């Protein structure tokens, strides 16, 4: 492909690039789009060619998914868990990250490396130990209060989600705080602001770009997470992905595909909408510190 071959190879190369790009785009758009189309198909249509367009808008699938498969309830559970987990996470992680990046105190280095070590721990490894721990505490609570509250509890799940996301979040936030010039804090303290005032009125507003990224990443993480939810919620109060998993198993054996794809759309749609609005920030934010668990 040297220059002497002239513009012909150049054109061929361009063509090749376009074909490759479009092929990959099709590979991604078609399956996702297909699920959307399939979610409004009637059951009989699934026996024909999978490429046939849906005959009409068969929204009964969604109604069925919401009513019979309790997807509405799962949706509510997911929202509750995600919102609480994000709240807990921010309340703990923001001050922690600020302090770790700005103040020198005894044990500072140890805590910093402790947080970094936490980055290597994967949720999948510790799902079962967490379950056992909660089970143990449940038995203790049973003997004291007469009932165990730790399993099948949305708040406990939110708490654990927040805990598992802490190392990454603190790491990301404190590396952002470190880039902020300390002149602002000096100015604030000259103006008579205390530590809390400095943090809330000066530093946090300046860190908003990174806070937004943290919220986005962790929203996707919590919303899509299912192995902890599956393990810790064996009974009621399941979240959306677990509900979808049950729905998929049930509908496949019942050969009733419509609601299954409707369920998949319900899980996908919030993340897709969010993504369309913030895609620029998300792909930029990944470079701030990218690690996917």
């Amino acid at each position, binding site marked *: *492909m*040297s*220059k002497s071959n002239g513009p012909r190879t150049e054109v061929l*190369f361009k063509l090749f*690039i*376009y074909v*490759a*790009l479009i092929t*990959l*785009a099709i*590979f*991604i*758009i078609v*399956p*996702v789009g*297909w*699920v959307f189309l*399939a979610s409004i198909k009637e059951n009989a249509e*699934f*026996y*024909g*060619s*999978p*490429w046939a367009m849906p005959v009409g808008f068969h929204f009964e699938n969604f109604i069925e998914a919401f009513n019979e498969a309790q997807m509405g309830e799962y949706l509510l559970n997911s929202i509750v868990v995600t919102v609480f987990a994000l709240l807990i996470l921010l309340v703990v992680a923001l001050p922690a990250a600020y302090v770790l990046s700005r103040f020198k105190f005894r044990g500072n280095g140890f805590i910093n490396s402790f947080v970094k070590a936490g980055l*290597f721990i*994967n*949720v*999948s*490894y510790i*799902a*079962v*130990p967490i*379950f*056992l721990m909660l089970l143990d505490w449940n038995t203790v609570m049973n003997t004291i209060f007469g009932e165990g509250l730790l399993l099948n509890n949305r708040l406990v799940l939110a708490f654990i989600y927040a805990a598992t996301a802490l190392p990454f979040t603190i790491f990301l936030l404190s590396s952002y705080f470190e880039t902020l010039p300390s002149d602002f804090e000096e100015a604030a303290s000259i103006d008579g602001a205390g530590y809390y005032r400095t943090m809330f009125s000066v530093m946090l507003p300046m860190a908003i770009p990174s806070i937004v990224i943290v919220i986005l990443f962790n929203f*996707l993480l919590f919303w*899509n997470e*299912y*192995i902890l939810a599956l*393990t810790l919620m064996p009974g009621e109060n399941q979240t959306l*992905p677990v509900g*979808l*998993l049950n729905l*998929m198993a049930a509908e496949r054996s019942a050969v009733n595909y419509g609601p*299954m*794809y409707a369920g*998949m759309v319900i*899980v*996908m749609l919030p*993340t*897709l909408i969010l*993504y369309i609005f913030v*895609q620029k920030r*998300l*792909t*930029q934010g*990944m*470079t701030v510190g*990218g690690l*996917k*668990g």
Partner: protein
Amino acid sequence: MSLYRWGGFSNTKEFVGFDNFITLWNDVDFIQSFQNSILLIVVVAIFTLLIAVFFAAVLTKETIPGGNFFRVIFYVPNILSIVVIAGVFSAIYDPSSGLLNSIFGTLSLENFQQMWLGDQDIIIYSVAGALVWQAIGYYMVMYMSSMASIPPSFYEAASLEGASKWKQFTNITLPLIWNTIRTTLTFYIISTINLSFLLVKAMTGGGPDGSTEVFLSYMYDQAYGNSTYGYGMAIGVVVFIFSFALAAIVNHITKRDVLEY
């Protein structure tokens, strides 16, 4: 915990030293899951790396109308829940009404039609396909951000001296993003071990006959399904150490002098 024999029903813990690890050494199912995991890591890492680097190079170096559109689309699989991905790929791989088989049907390439999720020899590659599909966008964005920081004057100088695009890529781009590639190799190991478990759990459940069982799904089955917690934790310890060792080895092998620019 890995040093105890701990059944779920008796609820008694008994210290057994390294017995769990010795059992593990002779466990045929574990060795099968070990092989599957290694295969997945190698296949997924190679394919994702090649495809992601190629598209990252194309999207940063070539001026393409709609380049941003492609970047946005390629990242979409990464934001989908792994359960949804499992559902999508079940639809693609479905033997009778699946997308893949019907494409081969219309192109009259019936020989290529397979039981993608039923044949023990193929299914692991089907899983690998799904993993590559979801990983490309993420790594592509990472390589793109690293390539974007290479000063364009390097390329100008190279093209003045008559270096072809391929030469520019191998002599400028690759050495300068080598450090990013090294970092992502570690990510490939960690995330493939993790995501293959999530995907297998949602898509195939380890079947048929253990042919898609991977490290952590085997651990989960032993610990949660079988209630042999001690044994499950022993598997966890082995996998954890293994992934660290593998990452360290890969890191060591790929060590080059970091080029500054």
